[in-house]
Each structure stands twice: as C-alpha cells, then as structure tokens.
C-alpha cells in the first residue's frame, strides 16, 4: 500500500493550563490515503481543530505532545527542524480555515499575497503573476486581473474564500486541510465553494482532511469519516455507511438530533444528547461516552472499549449488538400545531418597504412585503444574505421605521415605528433572540439579575413577585438554581442561549423574532433549543418570526415559510409545500444548495454569480439574472411578475404557472 498523505499514530496532546496538563487528544489514530477525502466530525471542543493544527505543527505555546507521532507524506513532522517544517508548509500541505476575511492580510493587495506563495517556491515575479492569474481562474474567479489588484475587504465572503483556496493550491500540495471552510457563508455560496473544492481535488488528486460541523457537507465531500468524541475516535468508516447506518451510540445520537426527512415540530421532538462532554483534563471514564450513553452498563465503566471491526469500519463500543435498539426507538411525539387561521392575525404587514439612504444612494432593502402571522404560528424567513430577512425583522421590532407609516398592525392596533414611540405593551409584546446570546446579555451581571431586570422592566412586576416569576421562567427554559448565580461567561453557548430566551420571554411576548438562534450551537444543543422553542410556543401561544440559514431547521419549526430575494417575497406558503414543491425557481435553487446528511439524490441547481446589489436592482423579475428557469423571450427581464395566489393560501411571484413549477410529484407534471 502507498504511504498515506497524513497519518496520526496514537497521538496524545495536552494543553498546559496553570501548570496542569489537560489532555485534548487522547490517542488519536487515523490515516488519509492519497487522493482521499477524510472527514472529522464531533461536537465543539472535541479536538478537531487541534488535530488539524497538529498536522501542520502550528500549535499554541502551551500545547504538549505527550506521545504518538504524525506523519505527513511519510515524514515524521514532529521531528522536523525549523527549516524543514517551513519547506513542508511551503510545498506539501496547505490549510484553509473559517472566516476568510480574517485569513487575508487587510493591508496587502490580494495579488501580492497570492504571488508570495509562488515566489516562495523560487519563481520570478513575472511567473508568480502569471500563475496567480491562472490559479484564480481555476477557482472560478471570472475577472482575475481586477481581483489581483484589490484589497481583501473589497471582495465578498465567497470571493475571499476562493482567494484563500487559490493560495492553498498554489504549491500544488499533497494534502489540504479544511477546518470549517464554509461556516459563515451563505448556503448557495457554501455549495459553490464545496463544488469547487471537489472539482479541484479530483483534478489535482489532492488528499483532503475536511472538518465541518455541517454533517451534510461532510457527507457530500468525504470518502471516509472519523467521529471524534472528547479527543478519542469512537467510530470510523465510509461516510455513506456511517451516516446511513451509524453503529456507535454517540453517532446515532448526533444524527438523531438533526431535523431530517422533513421532520416537523408537530410530528416529533428532536433527540438531544443529555449531559456534556467530559471536561477538559477531567479523568476519563473507561468509555468516554458512558455518562451520556443510554446503553451504558457496568462493563463500560470498568473496561475501556477497543475497536470492534465491522467489515470496513470500526466502532469503539462494547455493545455494538444493541445499537439497533437506539436507531429504531421512536422519538417522543411532537406538539400538534393549534394555529387558528380564522382568528384575527397577531401581526399584519401590508405593503411594508424599507429603503436606506447612504452616500446619495437608495438601498431598497425591503420591497412591498405583505404577510400575516397568527397566534401560535411560526413564519420562517429564508433567503441568501442580503435578501432582507433581518431588515424586515428589525422593522417589525421597531429598530427601523418602514418607508410608509401605518403599514404594520400588531394585535389589531397600528404599530408605531421606533421602540421609543411604542406604548409599553407593544414593546413588551415583540421581543428578539439573537444568534449570539452574548450581545444580548450583560457580561457583568449574574443570570438572576439579567432575567430579574427583564421581569421588572418588561413584565413590570413588583419586587415581591419577581422571585416567583423568576423561578417559573427559569424552570420553563430548563435552567437550574445553580445557574442563576453564574455570569454569562461561565455558561456554555447553549445555556447562554437559554438565558437569552428566558429574558425574551420574561414579559410574555406575543411575538418573538428568532434571528439565527441556533446557528452557533452544536447539533445536540440546537436540538434542545428547538425543542424548547416548540414547547414555549405551545404553552404560551407565542408567534415566531424565525430566521435561519439552515433550511431543515426552518422547516422543522415553521408552519409557513416566506422566501425573500432582494427584499421581495418570492413565495409564501405552508412549509411542506414550499419545501416539497411546487415551488419558486429560487426556492428550488436554495433547497438544492443545502447538502443533506441523507445523501443528495437531486442534481444541484447552480445559481450563477452573487445576489445583485440592492441599489441597482434588475429590471422585470429581480431574479431573472440568475434564474435557471428563465423563460425564452424577454418577458422575465422586462415585466415583474405579480404575486399569484396558490391553492393552499400562499403566493408565488413567477411567470411560470403554478402547476409547471419544480419539485412537484411527477404525476402533476404532465
């Protein structure tokens, strides 16, 4: 067999914290074969990035290798001297990580940064320039010349990541390490970047170590995957096998946390993995997963499980024979939706527009949006970044004033623009939960004080009643007494988000705007938060405006979905129909961009280019510049289609008749 591109042998690594060695990788072994793409998955903090940076020996000063070795292209990288290491990085391995905006030097032109990589290989300036141009073309940048002369901040996120990938490819490395390369990018951009990486990998025969929290992306990209838990690999095998037929209780749990197969809150709750990963440096039980494992027995506490080989895959578990019990166990039932669509809607938007004026230009962020939200209903808002989701939500919240007054009605009354002008009950009635709970929570205050303050301010409770209400609300978001005296910085991301939710619900709001509430959370935590949001909605009949770039999450929680593009509603309808079709060509493209853990059966629909600027909007149908189903002739580019009612009470904005739109059962498609 040929030498692996990357090989970890029983690697043990610890971080020194206050003189104590805290083990993070506890005997990790795996190999990436030439031309192979290997995925590493696992919850935050399990050591994925540490493994990635060990492979290029770029570790914080407090890292200590306690044992084992790492071979890259057959060389023991832990024994290289400075010069050899530098050569290795220049020639054999590249790494791409999250947030391309930060990865490029803001004060140096893109071209010079790219040329640097070639000049390092001893090329002349002229050759370096020619090659830079060439590689930019390879990463599908249409106009390399102009990109070379720009600074990083003048490129969009997707372009920046292409440049970083181009830089990684410059030395034609044997191995590329990708650590969350698409986190933070739009689904459509993510899909393009993944396509690009796949294409280049096939073209150059590069090996790839791919790390992502997006299990769908891992499945779409990888030949094999390793599941890492608390610094130990617990399962490894072909990606397809591991995802379709997980054999370790942890992998099973991870996959069951995801809303899959079109699951909905009304049908079933999501599985959560109760408990936490063992703390860093804590003494490990024999089986690392034992504290959270539903199958754990006495043996699991006393004897560390070795690999069980299952024809081409390995599982580290004593009770592999019982795992099918977990797989087939039914998920708890969900809470049926009780939305009464004949009642007066909680919120009515009637032709809401929002234009920002900046530097003499009119940025039309939201155009003529009309919709209704009923009590206890969730309306999902989806669309690429720049489509106006957040602006719309902020207009409802009163952060922005809509262009025309009197276009928003809340609970039968006209909603004034600007939170200051609103009466207290309107302010209390509409609250928000952010993606990043830190921004909503005062770092210096205890949880008790944060929630207590909201109870006094929003619910206007007298002091004597605050304590009782505090108990009630903290119990309903499942925080315990112990958490109340902690500060936000002492809480994990999921717990912080619970505090933020408690705060938002303190004044018994009628509507809660959820702006990417689970995007920075692990899937198991996300599942718990989604269950919680479902329960709170059911108990209190609260309505949600729910924004998320994760379409499966939106589908799980939403009753109806509005798809936005350049500030317009392109389509609005019941969640099932919007997802399963017939749907708008834009929705169809969005859906096909999101890779699925269940494997992709559909051909991906490509959207060319980026979302046009909100200043110079295209004529006719605003989507015509990218629409894969644009009609022959110039109807689409000259006439803006009206919002046409659909049989299920929704609307679609497209010249194509409803019964000829995509995604519908074949029978309907004539």
């Amino acid at each position: 067999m040929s030498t692996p591109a990357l090989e970890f042998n029983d690697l043990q690594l610890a971080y020194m914290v206050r003189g104590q060695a805290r083990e993070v990788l506890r005997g990790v072994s795996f190999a990436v074969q030439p031309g192979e793409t290997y995925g590493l998955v696992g919850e935050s903090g399990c050591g994925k990035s540490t493994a990635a940076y060990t492979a290029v020996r770029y570790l914080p000063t407090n890292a200590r290798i306690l044992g084992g070795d790492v071979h890259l292209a057959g060389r023991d990288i832990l024994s290289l001297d400075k010069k050899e290491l530098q050569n290795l990085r220049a020639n054999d391995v590249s790494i791409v990580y999250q947030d391309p905006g930060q990865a490029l030097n803001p004060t140096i032109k893109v071209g010079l940064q790219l040329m640097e990589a070639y000049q390092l290989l001893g090329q002349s300036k002229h050759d370096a320039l020619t090659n830079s141009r060439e590689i930019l073309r390879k990463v599908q940048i249409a106009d390399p010349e102009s990109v070379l002369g720009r600074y990083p901040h003048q490129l969009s996120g997707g372009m920046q990541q292409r440049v970083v990938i181009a830089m990684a490819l410059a030395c034609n490395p044997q191995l590329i390490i990708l650590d969350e390369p698409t986190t933070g990018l739009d689904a459509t951009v993510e899909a393009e970047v993944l396509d690009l990486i796949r294409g280049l990998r096939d073209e150059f025969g590069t090996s790839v170590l791919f790390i992502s929290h997006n299990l769908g992306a891992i499945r779409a990209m990888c030949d094999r995957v390793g599941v890492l838990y608390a610094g130990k690999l617990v399962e490894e095998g072909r990606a397809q096998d591991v995802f379709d037929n997980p054999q370790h209780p942890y992998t099973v749990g991870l996959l069951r946390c995801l809303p899959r197969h079109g699951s909905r809150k009304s049908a079933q709750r999501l599985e959560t993995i109760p408990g936490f990963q063992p703390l860093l440096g804590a003494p490990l039980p024999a089986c690392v997963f034992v504290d959270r494992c539903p199958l754990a027995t006495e043996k699991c506490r006393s004897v560390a499980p070795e690999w069980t080989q299952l024809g081409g895959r390995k599982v580290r578990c004593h009770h592999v024979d019982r795992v099918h019990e977990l797989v087939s166990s039914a998920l708890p039932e969900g809470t049926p939706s009780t939305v009464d669509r004949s009642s007066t809607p909680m919120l009515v938007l009637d032709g809401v527009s929002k234009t920002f004026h900046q530097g003499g230009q009119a940025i039309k962020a939201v155009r003529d949006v009309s919709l209704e939200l009923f009590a206890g209903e969730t309306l999902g808002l989806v669309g690429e970044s720049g489509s106006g989701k957040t602006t719309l939500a902020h207009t409802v919240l009163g952060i922005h004033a809509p262009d025309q007054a009197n276009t928003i009605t809340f609970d039968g009354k006209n909603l004034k623009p600007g939170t200051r002008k609103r009466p207290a009950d309107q302010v209390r009635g509409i609250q928000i939960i952010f993606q990043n709970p830190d921004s909503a929570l005062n770092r210096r205050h205890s949880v008790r004080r944060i929630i207590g303050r909201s109870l006094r301010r929003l619910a206007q409770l007298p002091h004597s009643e605050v304590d009782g209400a505090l108990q009630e609300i903290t119990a309903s978001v499942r925080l315990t007494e112990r958490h109340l005296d902690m500060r936000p910085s002492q809480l994990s991301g999921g717990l912080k988000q619970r505090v933020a939710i408690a705060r938002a619900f303190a004044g018994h709001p009628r509507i809660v705007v959820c702006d990417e509430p689970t995007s920075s959370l692990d899937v198991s935590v996300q599942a718990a938060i989604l269950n919680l949001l479902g329960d709170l909605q059911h108990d209190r009949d609260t309505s949600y405006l729910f924004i998320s770039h994760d379409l499966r999450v939106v589908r799980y929680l939403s009753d109806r979905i509005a798809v936005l593009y350049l500030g317009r509603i392109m389509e609005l309808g019941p969640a099932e129909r919007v997802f399963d079709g017939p749907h708008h060509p834009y929705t169809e493209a969005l859906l096909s961009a999101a890779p699925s853990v269940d494997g992709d059966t559909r051909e991906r629909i490509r959207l060319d280019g980026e979302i046009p600027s909100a200043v110079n909007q295209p004529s006719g149908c605003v989507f015509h510049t990218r629409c894969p189903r644009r009609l022959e002739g110039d109807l689409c580019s000259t006439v803006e289609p009206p919002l046409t009612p659909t049989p299920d009470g929704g609307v679609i904005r497209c010249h194509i008749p409803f019964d000829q739109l995509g995604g519908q059962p074949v029978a309907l498609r004539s």
Partner: protein
Amino acid sequence: MARYVLRRLGLAVITLFILSIVVFTVSAVLPGSVGRAILGPFADKRSVDQLNNELGVNGPLVNRYFRWVSHAVRGDFGNSYKYKSPVMDFVSKALTSSLKLALLTLVIVVPLGVIGGTIAALRQGKALDRIITITGLSLAVTPEFVIGIVLILVFPVKLGWLPSGGSPKGAVLDQLKTMLLPALTLTAILFGYLSRMARAGAIEALNSDYTRTATLKGLPRHVVLRRHVMRNSLLPTIAVIASQMSYLLGGLLVTETLFNFRGLGLLVADAARGKDIPMLMGAVFIVGALAMTMSLLADLLIAWLNPRVRLGAKQ
C-alpha cells in the same frame, strides 16, 4: 479618501476658529485692565486709560476680536508689551527651536518604542518582555523634572559631557549636544506609552489569522514579521504617536523651563508670568494650531496606510 481629507480639513478650520475665540476671550476678559496690569497698581488712572486707548483694548469685544483675527491670519499677533517688538518674531524663533527638539525626540523615541514594543511582544511573558514593560511604565510615571534633574546631575555636572541647558545655536553638532538631554527627558516620558502600544499592536497582529496564514504558507519567520506583522502593528502605534503629540508639547513646557531652552514652552511661561498678553495669545494660538496640525497629519497618514479607509469602505 479625498472626501475624508476635505472633511478632516474642514474640521481643523472649525477647531482653529473655536480655539481663537477661546484664546481671545480668556486673555481679553481675565486680567481686567490691561493698562493697569502693565503699569502696576501705583500708576494714576489717566495714564492707564491713555495706555488702554493706545493698545486698543477699550472697544467692544467683538470688534477687537475681529481686528485680532484679521491680523492673526496674516501672521501678525501685534507687539509684545514687554519687548515692544512683533510677537511673531519671538514666536517663530521659539517655534523653530521647539520643533527641532520635538523632531529629535521623535527620531529617538519612535524607533526605540516600536522596536522595544515589538521585541516585548515576541518575547511575550518572558523576562525581556517584563523588563521592557516595567522600564517603560516606571519612566512614564516619573515626573519630567525628576528625570531631567537626574540627567543634568549625571552628564553635565558629574561627567561634564554635555551642556546643562541653553538653546540650540551654531554648528549642527553643537545644537544636537544642547538638545540631547531635553530630548532624552522627553524620550523617557514617551517611551512607556509608545512601546506599550507597539507591543499591543504587535501581539494582535501576531495572533491574527492572516499571520497564521502567512506562517502556514511556509514563509520564513523574518518575512512574516516584516511583511505581515510589523505592517499591521504600526498602524495603532502611529495613532498613539499622533495622540501623544499634544502631550509632547506639554512635556516641552516643563522640560524647556528646566533646561532653560528657548522654545514655545518657555515663551508661554514667560509671557504668562509677565502678563504679556499679545505674546501669550500668539504663543498659545500657535501651540494649539501646531498640536492640531500634527494630529491632522497623523490621521491622514493612518488613513493612507489603511486601505479600508483610503478606499472608502463601508464599515
């Protein structure tokens, strides 16, 4: 960028205008009768009034202000009460000396501060870092006159190497010798701030993703430091140098008095002591204008170095 420059320039003009009003009102309103101030408590009322008339300090305040401004913009701050000759002559001479001293100080302190700070950042947490940081801090909190006196005691008095004071005159080398001790005093004061900023800037740049990218590209360490770390860490350091400009001018005042150095500081101090109003107004106004010009230049430099500002990105 052009718009930024224009806006910044406009702001500078407005600030200067406000400064002129403040300087004028303070000196016009505070000392009561100017004539009385000059002639002393025993002069008779008639000669006081006569002098007041001669000096033109009797008319309405607004008229006097505009007269003062219309002259000031032409570089005419009137005559010194004490020396009976144009204020501008004294101010411009003092200005030249002070600028020389400031320049020499900057030439010494900027490289020292930047290099010291960067070395401290590279040795973060190690002994050298501590030494640099603690030295800088202790120097910064020691009053100028203490440092100045120690320097005077050591070099001129004990070793007899350098002059203990005076103003720069004659050959360049002699001038440098005269200015060295005051410049070192100022350096001691400024080094702490500067090196601390340079250290913070360098640490931030060292920990940044782009430095990681550069290292993992396989660039040699010195190239990474020069091209990627220093370049970005200098930005905040320049900002500090700029904001320390007025501090430097303030430091000049004390240091100049100590070393009997004929610069703006000493001029202001003397004028204030001698109630020489035109001189005081002229000198203060020039000091203010100088501080502003420097911070303006520094801001423009920062903007020019930072492509995000230069190319007018939205934040």
